[in-house]
C-alpha cells in the first residue's frame, strides 16, 4: 500500500524533471537567443545583458543553474518586465486565478455530478434529455463564446452584474457578482463534461452484476445507488476532475483576457506575445508542476476509492 504511494510520488517527480528539462532545452533551441529576435541591440549591450543573465555560460551550466533555481523555487527574472521576477508575477497573478478557479471547480463538482446522476437515474425521461441537451451545448460552445454571450446578453441587461472583473470591490454585490461571468465561462465546458461523464459512467455501473446482487440482497434503492453504484461510477470522474482542476485553478487564458482578470493566465498570454522567454519557461513549469501534483492527487484518490489499485492484484485472477 505504501509502496504504491511512494512509487506515485517518485513518478511525479521524475515527470516534473522531464518537463523542466524539455522546456528548458526547447526555449534554448531558439536560434540567436532571447534578445536578438525582435530588434538588433548594439553588440556591447547584448554582451552586458548576456552576462547579466548568464547567457554566455555553457548551455549545460545554465541548465544546472536553472535546475538549482527550480529546486529552490526561484524561476528567474523576467527579461521584459524589468525588476520583476517570474516568482513576482506568479505571486501577483495566482491569487485571482485561484479564487475564480476554486469557485468554478466547486460549481462543476457540486452541479455536474448530481446532474449526471439524476440524468442516469431518469434515463430517457424529460429531465435527462434536457440536461444532456444543455451538456452537449456546453461542451461544444467555446469558452470565449460563452464569455462574450454573457457580456452582450446578460451583463448588458442586468447592470448589477459587472461586465469585467472588479479588482477591488467596494460593496458585497460586486464582490459576489463579479464571479458570475468568469465562473460561467470557465466552468461551462467542464461542467457539461463532468455531467455527461457521470451519467454514462453511472449507467455503465448500473448495468453491472454487483448492482443486481445488491438488489437481490434486499438493499434499498437509495443504498444501491448511493453506496454501491456511486463509488464505482465516480472513478472515471475523479480521473477527469484532477487535471481539470489544475487547468482551471491556473486560470484560463481566454476567460482572464475577456474579463480583464489580473491572473496568471493573462500574464502567460502577455509573455507569449511579448516573447518574454524566462516568463514563458517559468510559467510553463509552474503550470506543469501544478498539473502533475493534481494528477498525483488523483492517483491517491483513485487508490482510496478502488482497492484493486491500492492493494494490487495478488490472489485470484
Amino acid at each position, binding site marked *: 500500500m505504501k509502496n504504491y504511494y511512494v512509487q506515485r510520488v517518485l*513518478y*511525479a517527480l*521524475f*515527470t516534473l524533471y*522531464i*518537463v523542466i528539462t524539455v*522546456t528548458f532545452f*526547447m*526555449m534554448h*533551441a*531558439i536560434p540567436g537567443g532571447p534578445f536578438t*529576435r525582435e530588434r538588433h541591440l548594439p553588440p556591447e549591450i547584448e554582451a552586458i545583458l548576456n552576462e547579466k543573465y548568464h547567457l554566455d555560460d555553457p548551455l549545460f551550466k545554465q541548465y544546472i543553474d536553472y535546475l538549482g533555481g527550480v529546486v529552490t523555487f526561484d524561476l528567474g527574472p523576467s527579461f521584459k518586465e524589468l525588476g520583476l521576477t517570474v516568482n513576482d508575477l506568479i505571486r501577483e497573478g495566482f491569487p485571482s486565478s485561484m479564487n475564480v478557479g476554486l469557485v468554478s471547480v466547486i460549481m462543476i463538482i457540486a452541479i455536474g455530478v448530481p446532474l449526471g446522476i439524476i440524468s442516469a437515474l431518469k434515463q430517457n425521461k424529460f429531465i435527462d434529455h434536457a440536461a444532456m441537451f444543455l451538456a*452537449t*451545448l456546453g*461542451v*461544444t*460552445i*467555446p469558452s*470565449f*463564446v460563452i464569455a*462574450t454571450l454573457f*457580456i*452582450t446578453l446578460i451583463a*448588458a441587461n442586468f447592470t448589477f452584474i459587472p461586465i469585467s472583473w472588479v479588482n477591488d470591490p467596494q460593496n458585497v454585490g460586486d464582490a459576489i457578482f463579479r464571479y458570475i461571468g468568469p465562473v460561467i465561462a470557465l466552468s461551462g465546458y467542464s461542467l457539461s463534461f463532468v455531467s455527461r461523464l457521470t451519467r454514462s459512467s453511472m449507467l455503465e455501473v448500473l448495468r453491472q452484476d454487483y448492482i443486481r446482487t445488491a438488489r437481490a440482497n434486499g438493499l434499498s434503492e437509495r443504498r444501491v445507488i448511493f453506496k454501491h453504484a456511486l463509488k464505482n461510477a465516480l472513478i472515471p470522474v475523479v480521473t477527469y476532475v484532477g*487535471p481539470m482542476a*489544475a*487547468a482551471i485553478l491556473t486560470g484560463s*487564458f*481566454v476567460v482572464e*483576457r*475577456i474579463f480583464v482578470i489580473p491572473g496568471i493566465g493573462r500574464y502567460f*498570454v502577455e509573455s*507569449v*506575445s511579448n*516573447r518574454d522567454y524566462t516568463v*514563458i519557461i517559468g510559467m*510553463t513549469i509552474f*503550470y*506543469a508542476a501544478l*498539473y*502533475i501534483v493534481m*494528477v498525483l492527487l488523483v492517483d491517491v484518490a483513485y487508490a482510496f476509492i478502488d482497492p484493486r489499485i491500492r492493494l494490487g492484484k495478488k490472489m485470484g485472477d
Partner: protein
Amino acid sequence: MSHTHLSTHELDSERRWVISVNKNDFNYVESSKKLNKEQIRPSLTYWKDAWRRLKKNKMAMAGMIGVLLIVAIAIFGPMFSKYNYSDQITDFSNTPPRMEIYQIEEGTYVFLSAQYRLFIVTDSGEIIERLDQTDTDIVNRIYTYDNHGEPVYLDYSYRLIPDSEIDFKLTYKGVSTTEQYDKVWNTTFLLGSDNLGRDVLTRVMYGARISLTVALVATIVNLFIGVTYGAFSGLEGGKIDNIMMRIVDIINSIPLLLYVILLMVIIDDRGLWTIIITLGSIYWVGMARLVRGQVLGLKEQEYVLAARTIGVRRAKIISRHLIPNAMGPILVSMTMMIPTAVFTESFLSFIGLGISAPQASWGTLANDALSALSVYPYQLMIPSLAIALTMLSFNFLGDGLRSALDPRLRKG
C-alpha cells in the same frame, strides 16, 4: 373441466386447448415445412449492421448532415462568393447584417451605422455609397454629411434626453425624418462586413477551409503517429511495450496545451503547416493508447492465434485481422478528435498564435472581433456560431458512431 389428469394450476382457463377432432393434425410434418417456421434473420456484417444502427439514430444523422453541409460550404462556398477573403472595401467597413433604414426623400434611403457613418442604401438592403462627413458640430450634436452637394444633417442630441421617444433626427432638403422606414437584411454583405470592409460571410466560409484543413490534417497526423506507436508497442509486448507505455504515461501527465503554445512560440512561423504539425505531433497519445489496447486484446483472440499457428505472416495478421477490428474505435476517436482540433486551433488563434493575416481561421475571426465586441457583436457571433455548429455536428456524429460500433450494444 376436461382432462382429469391435469390439476388446476397446470392448466388455467387461458391455456386450455381446444381438443382437436381432426386426426390429420397428428400427421407428421415434412422437414421442409418445419424449417420455414424457423425465423431466419439476415446476418449483417459488422459495418452494415453499424450503418443500420447509425441510420436509426436521429441525432447522429443530424450530426452527419451537419458535417457534410459544413464541409460542402467550406469547399464550394467561397466559389460562389463575389468577394475574395482579402478583398477590402474600406468605405463599407463594419456594416451589420441587419440595417435600420430611414427614408430621407422619396426613393432615397439611408442607414446610420453605430459609428455615425451614413450610407445611402436601397430599400432592398443594398449599400450604394458612404456619405462623407463634412461638418461636426459637437456642441449642438449635429453632424453634416454630403450627398453629392446636398447636405444631410444628423441631429443626435436626442440620445442625451432621458426617455426620448426618438433616437435622432435626419434632415435633408428641409424635410426631417425621425421614424424608421424599415429594417432590412444587408444584401451587399449578407453577414455584414468587418472593420476593414471585408465580407464576413466569405471570410467565415474561407475560415471553414482553414479550420477544417487544420483539424483534418492534424487528426490524420495524430492517427498516423498514434496507430504506428500503439500497434508497435502492443505487438512487441514485454519490455519494449513497457517502456513505450511509460513514455506515454509521462506525456499524458503533462498539460499538452502548454507545449502546443511553446512550440508555436519557438517555431515563430504562423503558417498553416506549423499549426497542423504542432497539433498533429502532440495529441497522438490518446490514439496510441487506444490502438495498443485494441491490439493487445485482439492479439489474444482465438482467430488471431489460429492464424498464427497456421503460419500466417505478421504483416498479414495486422492488415487482415488487427486493423479491421480496431477500425471501429479508431474511427470514433477520430471523429471526436476533429472538433477538439478545431477548438484548439481557434483557441491558439484567440491568444494570438494562430494563422497570420490576411488568412483567417474561425479562431482568428473571433479574436479580431473581440476588441469591438460591444459595438459589433455579430462579428464575433458568426465565427463562434460556426465553431459551435461544427463541434456539435461532429460530437453528435461521434456519439452515434460510438454506440453504433460498440459490439456490446449490437444486439439491441
